[in-house]
């Protein structure tokens, strides 16, 4: 798996590996780079890339996971986004949905606003916080082998699952999804619920 100048994993390579042969996997991408990352891996209806709602991605995953308990749900988000809504780890830790995985692509920076450092740059241990909140399977990942194992765990639906993946901070090419959020929502719901989605 590709690594960056820092020797850490390349975020796009991590996301492509996690979304390979994705089957019924439903994906919510946190605003900023994670939304571009999931779009780079393939702009499909079962992706919900976010353009806003910072701090809400994990809770969106919880609502979706509760509504669709037989399908694996993956929230892919950034360290800044997760830190803004970090209380969600406690809410998820209490609900414990088996089909929910929250994966933080941790570049230790706010990438969209000028690469200011986040708290993870200064030692804040998101995986430790998730574990302390009651998410028993909370991992800190640094290697390609660990990413492959994580992909298996996401599909196994033995969660809830939390993973903090240390990734290189280099910015990647912008790969933008549609910006009209009504379309993102409607195509996602149609993919999950069929045409009946629009008559609910």
């Amino acid at each position, binding site marked *: 798996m590709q690594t960056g100048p820092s020797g850490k994993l390349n975020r796009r390579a991590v996301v492509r590996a996690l979304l390979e042969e994705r089957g019924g996997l*439903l994906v*919510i991408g946190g605003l900023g780079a994670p939304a571009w990352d999931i779009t780079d891996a393939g702009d499909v209806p079962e992706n*919900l890339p*976010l*353009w*806003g*709602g*910072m*701090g*809400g*991605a994990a*809770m*969106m*995953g*919880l*609502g*979706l*996971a*509760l*509504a*669709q308990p037989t399908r694996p749900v993956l929230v892919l988000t950034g360290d800044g986004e997760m830190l803004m*809504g970090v*209380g*969600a780890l*406690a*809410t998820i830790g*209490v*609900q414990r949905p088996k089909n929910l995985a929250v994966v933080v692509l941790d570049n230790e920076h706010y990438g969209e606003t000028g690469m200011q450092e986040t708290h993870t740059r200064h030692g804040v241990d998101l995986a430790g916080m998730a574990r302390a909140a009651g998410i028993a399977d909370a991992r800190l990942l640094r290697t390609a082998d660990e990413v492959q194992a994580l992909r298996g765990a996401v599909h196994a639906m033995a969660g809830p699952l939390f993973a903090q993946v240390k990734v290189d901070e280099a910015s990647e090419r912008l790969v933008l999804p549609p910006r009209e*959020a*009504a379309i*993102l*929502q409607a195509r*996602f*719901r149609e993919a*999950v*619920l069929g045409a009946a*989605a629009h008559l*609910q």
Partner: protein
Amino acid sequence: MPDAADTDWPDQIYDLLKAHGIRQVALVPDAGHARLIRRCLADNTMKVVSLTTEEEGVAMLFGAWLGGEKGVLLMQSSGVGNCINMLSVAVAHRTPCPMLVTMRGEYGEFNPFQVPMGQATPTVLEAMGTLLNRADRPEDVAPGVDATLRLAFNTFRPAATLLGQRLLGAKTFGR
């Protein structure tokens, strides 16, 4: 002894949540919602999710709708302030976000800290595109909540019923 018709409005709200097929109930507790919360907790078809902050509920309801389930958010007026930016998710994605808000900081309030956000609640919700109605008498509750649920799910937007402090009774801290 108050008339039963004056005090059973939480049960009327519960019946409306059932009638509208609500499956996810997101909440930060408030005394005014206590009876409704007990009814929801006793119902195996409802997933009741206690939140650390109210904006989590706005995000959760969006996720629920993505998966084809209807949800509702229960909170106190002070919690509305915690939801402001997250309401942009429901507006931009055009998704339902029904909220039932118990009011503080108005009729007979005791605690000064409740007044600023209580007074700002309708302004803030409307500024974020939420359609509102108020219930200040027991007989206003069921029609107002029904209207909020219909507006939210039929027109895909945030909608709220504000349950007035006159209806709930002001918290007096024994004074």
